[in-house]
């Protein structure tokens, strides 16, 4: 394959193209990080007072010593106050892990005149902002395949760093990985891959019971199909092109197909118990972030192990 000069040229072109894309991405990153912080801050203030799990090694409760337990567990200080032996229990320290996957494939670099940002920018902003919020909320955040879950305060920087340094062309669907059964997965992408591929990927991710949220980030033009005349539509990821004589005649069929595609994804999501939301790049990022965060908080709170005391929540907020 390598001895075919055409292929080599193609490969070289791709390398150049991706290098250019990467450079663009790097250039955009500081702006995206800042925007993500801004968006996150607004949402954070918006959900003030949320109850949350306390972090780390804090006291949780005393319970009566049960026979057969190792004596070292006895909290002698407490036990000395009366005749009973108490065991000091600490809170369960393992944080919840949320996998955030922003789609950075070339198809996301699309912006029509109605949109305010490209889809990729929006996906990254959402990913960073969500990561920041979640880390502040005590969760661990990771990016499937490239970033292991972390609770670092500088989560945004780390996310940005790994995305920028990710070698290879980013896929348009999340890579196959094995999330823990209690993990949550947030998928931010356009999901314009064929319906079957999308549903198969979702099914695989949700196979071992992880929760999930699917946010389809679309450009308004992708929904309304505002084209007319003779147009050659080209798939940005090299899946081919199609020449349409009178684009306006295709609009109705296209919109129908899109609806069909979405309903298939939505059905799969419902089957897995995941949520499915659509975000249009003509809308502000905070909107979807707010609803996404609220939904996630609800789902995180619903977990049995995360029953924080109210005062802990206040503490952490401070």
């Amino acid at each position, binding site marked *: 394959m390598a001895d075919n000069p055409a292929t080599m040229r193609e490969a070289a072109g791709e390398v150049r193209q991706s290098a250019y894309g990467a450079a663009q991405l790097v250039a955009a990153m500081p702006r995206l990080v800042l925007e993500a912080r801004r968006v996150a801050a607004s949402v954070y203030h918006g959900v003030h007072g949320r109850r949350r799990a306390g972090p780390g090694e804090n006291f949780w409760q005393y319970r009566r010593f049960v026979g057969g337990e190792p004596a070292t567990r006895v909290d002698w200080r407490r036990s000395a106050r009366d005749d009973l032996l108490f065991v000091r229990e600490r809170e369960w320290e393992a944080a919840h892990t949320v996998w955030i996957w922003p789609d950075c494939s070339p*198809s*996301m670099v*699309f912006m029509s*005149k109605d949109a305010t940002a490209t*889809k990729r920018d929006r996906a990254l902003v959402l990913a960073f902002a969500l990561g920041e919020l979640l880390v502040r909320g005590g969760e661990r955040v990771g990016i499937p395949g490239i970033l292991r879950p972390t609770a670092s305060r500088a989560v945004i920087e780390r996310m940005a760093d790994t995305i920028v340094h990710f070698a290879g062309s980013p896929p348009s669907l999340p890579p196959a990985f094995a999330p823990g059964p209690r993990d949550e997965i947030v998928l931010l992408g*356009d999901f*314009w*891959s*064929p319906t079957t591929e999308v549903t198969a990927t979702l099914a695989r991710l949700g196979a071992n019971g992880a929760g999930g949220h699917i946010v389809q980030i679309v*450009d308004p033009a*992708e929904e309304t199909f505002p*084209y007319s*005349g*003779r*147009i*050659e*539509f*080209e*798939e*940005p990821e090299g*899946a*081919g*092109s*199609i*020449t*349409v*004589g*009178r684009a306006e*005649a*295709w609009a109705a*069929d*296209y919109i129908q*197909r*899109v609806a069909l*595609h979405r309903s298939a994804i939505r059905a799969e999501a419902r089957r897995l118990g995941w949520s499915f939301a659509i975000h249009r790049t003509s809308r502000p990022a905070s909107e979807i972030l707010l609803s996404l965060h609220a939904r996630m908080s609800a789902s995180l709170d619903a977990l049995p192990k995360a029953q924080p005391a109210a005062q802990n929540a206040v503490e952490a907020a401070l």
Partner: protein
Amino acid sequence: MIAGLPLAFTSPLILLGLLALPVLWWLLRLIPPRPRRIAFPPTRILFEIEPKEETPSRTPWWLTALRLLLAALIIIAAAGPIWNPPAAGSLPGGPIALIVDSGWTAAAQWDERIASAEAIASRAEAEGRGIAVLATGAPPKEVSLQRPGEARDALRLLAPAPHTPDRNDILLPLTRLLRTVPDASVIWLSDGVDLGDGGKFVAALNQIAPGRVTVVTGGIEGPRAITAADNAAASLTVKVLRADPSAPATGIVRARDLRGLSLGDAEFSFTGTETETEARFDLPVEIRNDIARLEIVGERSAGAVELLDKRWRRRTVGLVSGATADTAQPLLAPTYYLSRALGPFADVRLAEGTAPTTAIERFIDQRLPVIVLSDVGNIVGPARERLVRWIEDGGVLVRFAGPRLAAADDDLVPVKLRRGGRVLGGSLSWDQPQKLGSFAAEGPFRDLKVPDDVLVQRQVLAEPDGLLMERTWASLADGTPLVTAVPRERGLVVLFHVTADTAWSNLPISGSFVEMLRRIIALAGSGAVATEKTGVEEHGPAPTIAPSRLLDGFGAFTAPGPTARPIPADFSGRAVADHPPGFYGPPEGLVAVNALAADDRLKPLDLGPLGGRVEPYSRGEPLDLRAGFLSGAFTLLALDTLIIFLLAGGLARLARRHAAAALVFFIAIAAAGDHAHAQEMTQAQLDFALQASLQTRLAYVRTGDTEVDELSHAGLEGLSVFLAQRTALEPAEPMAVDIARDELSFFPMLYWPIVPAATVPNAETLARVDAYMKQGGTILFDTRDAYSGIPGRTNEVTPGLAKLREILAALDIPELEPVPRDHVLTKSFYLLRDFPGRYAGGTLWVEALPTAPEEQEARPARAGDGVSQIMITSNDLAGAWAVGGDGQPLLPLVPGDPRQREFAFRTGVNIVMYVLTGNYKADQVHIPALLERLGQ
């Protein structure tokens, strides 16, 4: 060559490519424009959609038309279009025989014709072909091939002939030439006019060089000519001719006298395709008689000039009848017959109701050239003496016999008449009326046909003597004289031996009578009679008249060349090579020969039988249009590209990506430009202000006339040097000031030379000037023309003064006066009495001082409140101050007094000091008194 258009193609066959345009149309319609490409992420969804039924996309018709036009332009450009193609643009190889029509018919557009000929020669030079030039107007000679350069020189030297050459004269040399170079092609630069030789020449040419002849004709204005001037009773008419309607249809015929002064104009116009029209001069007969030359204005050819000699002069004839009772039966009176006979060519004045002697005296007073006495007997008293003197001064006296003459004893007759009773009885009654026998060969009637219908019943008889035959102009069949004449000094006495009425003969009612009178009257006038006399006395077969002023081919008078030969006295008809048109004979007896005879008509040349190529003359330089067509094609190409770009949504793409950037860019550019502009303006003004104000400078107004401006600069520079040498003022280099734009307030004084040709500054500028003067500035106007005015005559208005008045009219100028003797200007530095410049005659005017108060004692110097706003001189001060780089004066002085330049400089110093110090100097004159008062 496209008919009617001076457009030709070097390779016309390429134009066949235009036939391919319909195919191109079809192809272009079929191939649609490229679709817009849009990167669209959900394209894979589109893959699943059933393809729609689509009509094939078509290129818009206007785009196709645009492309077809583009293709057509390229095809036309490839065919090599040439505007104003050179004459005989493409010829087969081989040498060229160039026939140039060079008669007067070619003269009017001679330059164009020679330019075409030179173009042909140049082309022949480029192609290395020999060329032989045959000019029809030149004397026939052998021709041979020349190098084109020589031929071109020969062509430049060629001048049109003033006569109408016979083209057939060159047939012989042409035939010989073509025999030596059989492959020569013939180019005939024709004037398109046939004056009788055309048909034969065309036929002969066709025979000599069949199919190798290219005729260059048309394309330029055809010739016009005038002929057949007729000085009729009411007006002078002349026929204007043209060969074809290509000649301008309207024009003016101008009449000039012998000295070339214009006497009058007459318009003419051809309607439609007319080739003949008439111009009419309605002028008084005295002026008409002075006309010596008629010409078509703007038509430079000998044919457009008609020369008139005495034959066209309309004489005023005084008619005196011996019988006062003639008027009783006016239609039978001799005066009536004479009036009718003289009417066509002369104006007749009748002596009515007065005695013959009174009438004769009155006619002599009126300076009539001809007096006709019809049966007047003896003329007595002073009238007779005056009449004799009048004849000797050149008058023509024509007498008719009659009962009174027969009875008279008068010697104012050419021959001795039989007198006494025998004469009385000698008025014989013929059995057989006699017919007119013959006209004398030497007399003026020599070319008349002897009429056979004239019958003479009675006559007065002459005494037969030796002189009788000589003096007889016409005689009857039996040899007795009918008309006799004798010259007396410069005059002439003619006697008709019959009456002027039909009583003695029917001559007065015959056509010959008119002709005879016409010829006699034509003799009237100074000199003609003398010529006639020599003709009579010489007995030569054909007296000749030498040429005096001849016309060249362009219709201008020239001195006679060596080839011009004298004409016979009876020369008539068209001018020929030996006798070019012009005036012949002595100044007092000019005979005109014209290029065209009265009945000549210009006919267009019939080139039909020739069957050769016919091309028009080129008018102006040939212009290669390929560049124009190609740039048009490239413009269309660029347009097409732009349209494709726009059709494919390029604009939207462009707008999306770059609109903002472009907008910002343009705004930035605009802002920067604006900013820079403003900056530049202020910078220039700042520089000017700094330059003008950091040092004191003299300044002059830039007039726009480079010479004057340079002189002003040199003059002020000279004055600056002088000031630095002599005074405490050291001015820097003088500056030029644009009165309309520059700030004036930096300068104490402006030197403003007046250029008569300059335009008056506009109102806004004059307002600035006014403000400058009002705010304390002084303007020194210099009309620089004192040399043209006579010293002392100040009321004369020179052009410069007129221009100055025009400028000052818009300004608020105070009352002016010549510098009075006690003005401070005379004392501001040097003591001066007058203020010379290059000229010493002009006066320096300043603002008038208020009159000195009576009560004050006369002060040695006066000054007004400030400095005079305005000073006006005409002495060209800068001209006197102007020094060159070597310190030497640039211009001489008038009148050139050695001290004049020194005084001119002193004038300048005084003016500058006056301007700078104002009335301070007026106060300075009191210093001695003040010092004295201080006790020094």
